[in-house]
C-alpha cells in the first residue's frame, strides 16, 4: 500500500494522498455551497492525516484560496458574484480584522486570551445558528398565515433588517447590481468592519460570519451572498498563502493534491446552489454552524478526538447531502431538456 502514501518534501511526512483528495473534495462541495473557506473543517482533517498543526493551517489557507477561485469562477457565471460589493466589503473587513487583532493582543497582555476567544466563538456560533433557524421558522409561520388567509406563500416573511439599514442614506450611495440593492457604500463597509473585528478576534477567515451578515444586514440574496463571500475568501486566502509561505509553514504538494479534489467538489457545491432555494442553503448552513459549535465546545473540554470525529462526520454527511441536491437537480434538468427536445421534434 506504499503507493497510497505521498512524501511531503518540506514537512518530511508521508501522507495518505487519497485522504487529501477526499478532504479537498468534501470541503470544495461545502465551501462552494455555503460560500465559506471552511478552515474549521480542513485543519483538523489535515492534522489527523499527519500534518503538524502549523503546516495544516498554512496548507489549508493556500488550498482555500485556490478552491475559492474555482468556486468564484463558477458562481460568477451564474451571476452570483457582486464584485463591487465584494471590494467594498474587503476594505471594511481588513480594517476590522486589524482591530480584532489588537483586541487579541490586549487580552494576551491580560493573560485571558484563550478562554475568552473560545467562549466568544461559541456564543457567536450559537447566535448565528439561532438566527438562521429563527428566520426560517418565522418565514414558515408567515407563509402558513398567508395561505390560511387565502393569500400566497412568498417565503419572504423571515428576518429582514436590511430595508431599515438601507434607509440610512449617507453619501456616497451605490448601486450593487448583482445583489439588486442600492445603499450607502458605508453600509457594507461598516458591516464588514464589524464582521472583520469578530473574524480577527477569533482568528478565522470570516466566511461563517460574513455570509449571514450579507443576507440579513446588507440584504443580498442568499446566492449572491455565497458567491460574493467566496470572492472575499479568495483574496484574503491568497494573501494568507503568501504570509504562511514566508513563515515556512506550507506544503505546496499537498495544496495541489487537495485542489484536484476541490475542483470537482466546488463544481458540485456551486451547481447545487442552482437547485436549492435560499432558505434551503441557509438551513443547511445553520446545521454546519451547529456542527462547528459542537466541535469547539468538545475541544474546550479537551475531547479532541471526539471533536475531530464530529467535524469529519459532519463534513461527510453535509457533502453527501449537497451531492444529492446537485445530482437530483441535474438529472431533472437534463431529463426536462430531453423531453422538451423530443416534443419540439414531434411538432
Amino acid at each position: 500500500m506504499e503507493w497510497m502514501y505521498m512524501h511531503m518534501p518540506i514537512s518530511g511526512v508521508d501522507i495518505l494522498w487519497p485522504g487529501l483528495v477526499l478532504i479537498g473534495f468534501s470541503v470544495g462541495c461545502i465551501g462552494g455551497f455555503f460560500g465559506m473557506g471552511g478552515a474549521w473543517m480542513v485543519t483538523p482533517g489535515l492534522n489527523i492525516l499527519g500534518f503538524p498543526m502549523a503546516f495544516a493551517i498554512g496548507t489549508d489557507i493556500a488550498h482555500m484560496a485556490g478552491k475559492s477561485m474555482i468556486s468564484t469562477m463558477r458562481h460568477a457565471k451564474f451571476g452570483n458574484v457582486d464584485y463591487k460589493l465584494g471590494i467594498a466589503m474587503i476594505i471594511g473587513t481588513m480594517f476590522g480584522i486589524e482591530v480584532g487583532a489588537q483586541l487579541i493582543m490586549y487580552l494576551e497582555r491580560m493573560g485571558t486570551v484563550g478562554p475568552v476567544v473560545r467562549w466568544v466563538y461559541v456564543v457567536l456560533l450559537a447566535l448565528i445558528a439561532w438566527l438562521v433557524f429563527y428566520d426560517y421558522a418565522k418565514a414558515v409561520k408567515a407563509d402558513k398565515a398567508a395561505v390560511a388567509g387565502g393569500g400566497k406563500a412568498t417565503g419572504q416573511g423571515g428576518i429582514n433588517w436590511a430595508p431599515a439599514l438601507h434607509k440610512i442614506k449617507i453619501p456616497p450611495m451605490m448601486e450593487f447590481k448583482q445583489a439588486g440593492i442600492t445603499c450607502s457604500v458605508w453600509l457594507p463597509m461598516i458591516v464588514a468592519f464589524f464582521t472583520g473585528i469578530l473574524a480577527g478576534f477569533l482568528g478565522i477567515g470570516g466566511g461563517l460570519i460574513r455570509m449571514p451578515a450579507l443576507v440579513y444586514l446588507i440584504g443580498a440574496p442568499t446566492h449572491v451572498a455565497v458567491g460574493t463571500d467566496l470572492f472575499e475568501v479568495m483574496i484574503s486566502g491568497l494573501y494568507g498563502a503568501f504570509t504562511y509561505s514566508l513563515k515556512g509553514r506550507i506544503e505546496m504538494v499537498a495544496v495541489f493534491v487537495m485542489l484536484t479534489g476541490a475542483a470537482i467538489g466546488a463544481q458540485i457545491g456551486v451547481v447545487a446552489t442552482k437547485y436549492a432555494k435560499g432558505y434551503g442553503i441557509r438551513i443547511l448552513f445553520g446545521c454546519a454552524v451547529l456542527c462547528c459549535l459542537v466541535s469547539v465546545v468538545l475541544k474546550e473540554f479537551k475531547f479532541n478526538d471526539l471533536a475531530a470525529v464530529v467535524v469529519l462526520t459532519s463534513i461527510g454527511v453535509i457533502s453527501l447531502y449537497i451531492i444529492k441536491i446537485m445530482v437530483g437537480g441535474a438529472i431533472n434538468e437534463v431529463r426536462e431538456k430531453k423531453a422538451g427536445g423530443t416534443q419540439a421534434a414531434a411538432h
Partner: protein
Amino acid sequence: MFRHWFWRGGLLAVLTLLPSLAWAAGGGGASDIVVVADTRQLAGANFYFSELYNDNITVFAVWAVVLTTACGAVLGVVMDFIMKRTGIDLTKRSIVEH
C-alpha cells in the same frame, strides 16, 4: 486620466496591503522554529522548490501564490470545459429570490 489611475492605483494598493493586517490576526501564529527541508532524497520540481524553500523563502512565497493562482485558474477552466458537456445550463439559475 490622472484621477482615474490614482483611484485604480489606490484601490490596488489597499487590496494588496490591507490583507497583511488581516492575516496578522488569523490562524494562530506559526512558531518561530525554523524548518529545513531535507532535499537529499528529492529530485526534479520537488528538489527545486525545497531548495528554494531553504535558500530564499521570499521567492518561495511568491511561487506559492503564483502556483496556487495558476492551479486554481487552470482547474477552474478544465472543470468548466467538462461541466459544459454535462448538458446542465451553467449560465443561469431558475430559483431567483430577493
